[in-house]
């Protein structure tokens, strides 16, 4: 199962706007995608689940995906996180 670690460098971490963008990208893929942070696991396709991680600026999140397009899903989510969710700084 492919997995990758990402670091949240945007100002607010996985809060409302970034979480909405994260889930929207995750839903474009068939793969089952989980985000792990601080001992908690979130369904990457659920806004409430992602918000419940409480992942803030500077923290790291482990993404794991399973399914035919798992690697593409992780690549797209990593790109989103690394471009700070398109947020102006």
């Amino acid at each position: 199962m492919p997995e990758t670690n990402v670091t949240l460098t945007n100002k607010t971490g996985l809060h409302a706007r970034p979480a909405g963008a994260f889930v929207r990208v995750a839903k474009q893929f068939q793969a089952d995608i989980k985000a792990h942070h601080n001992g908690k696991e979130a369904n990457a396709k659920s806004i409430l689940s992602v918000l419940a991680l409480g992942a803030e600026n500077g923290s790291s999140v482990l993404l794991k995906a399973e399914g035919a397009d798992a690697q593409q899903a992780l690549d797209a989510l990593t790109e989103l996180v690394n471009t700070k969710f398109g947020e102006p700084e």
Partner: protein
Amino acid sequence: MNRIEILSPFTGRVLPIEEVADPVFAEKMVGDGLAVEPTEGVGLAPVAGQLAVFHTAGHAFAVQVTPEVGVLVHVGLNTVQMKGQGFGRSAEKGDTVKAGQPVVKFDIPAINAAGYSPISPVILPDLPADYRIEKTTAKSVRAGQDVLMTLVRG
């Protein structure tokens, strides 16, 4: 559950979500709902459930009602930037809360003084397609007393 009543977390004027001056809410990027412009600085749990989200900055919380339904309450717009200043916690993440139980206290003048809007969206994220939202037509609501939205299944 086939019918879930969501009480207003706030006392104040009701606004359509589309009129909220933040596209993340107005464009329903996190879900549909309504907003309230609060006149009192208290936010209550709108439903009974588990306090699944309570941001460290105190300005956003969510109550999970069933595994598939939760209500997100966001006090003010862009208030994450206040980093908890002007916000006080009356409950903690993981708590089981009753409908109408106080969750957060906030200082409306401090929010205004910091340059943010106190307009507070109440959102239903991840809502399954078989639920529809009946929104109140009232112009103003009382916290913990008036139903803001009703979720109806089927």
